[in-house]
């Protein structure tokens, strides 16, 4: 059909129309994504904003929206920080292992295994965390209660089921480990070979080479990887909802029976029995979570974008 017309130079308008339609479709798809992102904000706001001012019974055990969402936000950040504290050292270690330490024959399969870890669905992590890991961590938590009880984090008394915010934090840490590892290992591997060899030629040991050549180069990438991991941990629902039997409390104690709930887990566990009024309260808390994770991710990506621009310059 078009092949005959294409041969003639005069027939360009038909192809231009095809081009216009195609370009329009492509641009439309791009704009659609922006619209979808805006729609998330708008619809959550429309359904959620009424939830800020509902009868006090909807905020049980508290009586108004701000303290309610404040306590949930505290739990969210607390659990995410525990996860980060556990995951970051390991993630950096594994990233270094893959990029600089492991023999090639080992580095590729290890990277693959870490990617598989990222593929495991969160509900399976939740099931494993609630049924297996929590039981396995009971002795460890009792040991912490006995020997480290003077630190507020381990004040105890240790839970006998092991379903504590510490267990949830460990599960979250395992879940965010792959994303932090994947990003940092790419950045470590991008360190200019000349920097590394210059350091080694000056007599640096391998660790000194990493400390003085690799880390300065990868600093902003590491920061953004950690923040992306934080964003993931803040929004993770199922693992926390299944491991914790939580209530909105503010406590530093990581190993006791009363654990702070997170926004996401609170939505998942109180959703099924929610009245329409409670529903809009839950959506309002979801809006807070969205705004918070959006800000964290935005900052992380801005750090990456800035460092990329600096490197290409």
């Amino acid at each position, binding site marked *: 059909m078009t092949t005959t017309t294409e041969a003639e130079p005069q027939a360009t308008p038909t192809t231009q129309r095809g081009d216009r339609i195609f370009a329009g479709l*492509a641009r439309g798809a791009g704009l659609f994504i922006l619209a979808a992102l805006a729609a998330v904000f708008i619809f959550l706001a429309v359904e959620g904003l009424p939830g800020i001012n509902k009868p006090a019974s909807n905020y049980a055990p508290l009586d108004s929206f701000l303290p309610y969402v404040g306590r949930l936000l505290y739990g969210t950040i607390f659990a995410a920080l525990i996860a980060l504290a556990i995951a970051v050292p390991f993630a950096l270690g594994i990233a270094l292992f893959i990029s600089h330490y492991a023999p090639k024959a080992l580095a590729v399969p290890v990277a693959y295994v870490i990617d598989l870890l990222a593929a495991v669905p969160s509900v399976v992590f939740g099931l494993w965390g609630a049924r297996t890991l929590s039981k396995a961590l009971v002795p460890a938590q009792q040991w912490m209660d006995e020997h480290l009880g003077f630190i507020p984090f381990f004040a105890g008394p240790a839970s006998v089921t092991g379903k504590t915010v510490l267990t949830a934090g460990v599960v979250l840490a395992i879940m965010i480990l792959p994303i932090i590892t994947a990003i940092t290992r790419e950045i470590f591997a991008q360190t200019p070979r000349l920097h590394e060899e210059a350091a080694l030629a000056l007599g640096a040991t391998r660790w000194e080479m990493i400390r003085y050549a690799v880390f300065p180069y990868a600093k902003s990438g590491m920061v953004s990887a950690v923040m992306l991991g934080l964003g993931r941990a803040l929004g*993770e629902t199922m693992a926390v909802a299944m491991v914790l039997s939580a209530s909105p409390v503010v406590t530093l104690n990581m190993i006791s029976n009363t654990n702070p709930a997170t926004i996401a887990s609170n939505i998942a566990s109180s959703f099924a029995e929610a009245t329409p009024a409670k529903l809009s309260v839950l959506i309002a808390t979801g809006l807070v979570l969205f705004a918070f994770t959006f800000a964290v991710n935005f900052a992380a990506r801005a750090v990456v974008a800035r460092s990329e621009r600096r490197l290409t310059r």
Partner: protein
Amino acid sequence: MSATETRVGQRASLPLAAPRLPSWAPGLVAAVAVGAAGLLALLAGWGIPAFAVVTAILFVAGLPLWSASVEGRRGAVDRLMTALVWTAFGVAVVPLVWLIWTVLDNGLPEINMQFLTFDMRNVVSDDQGGIYHAIIGTLLVTAAAAIISVPVGLFCAIYLVEYGKGTRLARWITFLVDVMTGIPSIVAGLFALALFVLIFGPQIRLGFGGSVALSLLMIPIVVRSTEEMLRLVPDDLREASYALGVPKWRTIMKVVLPTSLGGIITGVMLAIARVIGETAPLLVIAGKTDSVNFNLFGERMTTLPVYIYYSFTQPGTVPFDAPPGTEAPGIARAWGAALVLIIIVMALNLIARAVGRIFAVKKG
């Protein structure tokens, strides 16, 4: 003359390299650590976890101490960091192996033909129930999500690479797509819920809502991976096509897309593998039912992850004649469904990577 001779002689006697531990030193320290920890474990009656922890501590502390006495401080720090990095690797493999082992151990006894072909309608206590309805729900919801996400994601990537390169709009889209990859899945579910509640009223639950939520999570992944693949297509190919007088859109359809097809399919399959295990959005908008539902646009629809969640939270009653200590029947079903879900996700991952390797963009 003689003075220089002696100086040369002195220099020759100076060691040229700093003293190093022999190459078998880490192995020896590891063996000693295992032995010492094993002895302690036997004497004090510890379990395997405590034994492993003590072994690791002995190794991580022992090698640098020895190194410090021979190689000096810098060498010791290097040894310490090497030991720590290897330990991090060893520890990281533990959860994956442990998790896969647990799921296999608990899930395999559950799996049989009835489990795969029965639904949960009128299943009481430990009657044979199944996950047929959940498998159907998962496949339908995910397929619909893919049908929404793949065209949008593809065209958006084409815009970013072929049309909008360097424009301000393209930069913003790239940036916001990156930010979108971090949207919490439950927020996507709440968005779909808010959307459909606004249109149909508060009691609405439908499978298609789940697809909308999943596609919100899936589009950014498709865009990112497709964009990367399109960038890999060499510009020579495009220019050769333009030089033949082929219009831009036909160049994209006939040259650019076929060249990068393998990578795009890999990206799409990985995106599907990523969203097929999502629980939170479906919990919120697709709801839960015990029956098979083929209609995406009406009634509740159970998916595998939601089935696992409800089997875990509402495991049913233990039959009265069961021996004491028996688990509620829902727990076993949850493990069985978890195994099926993991198999689906892993299969998608493996196939995706194989496709990517076979159809990789040929460079040069």
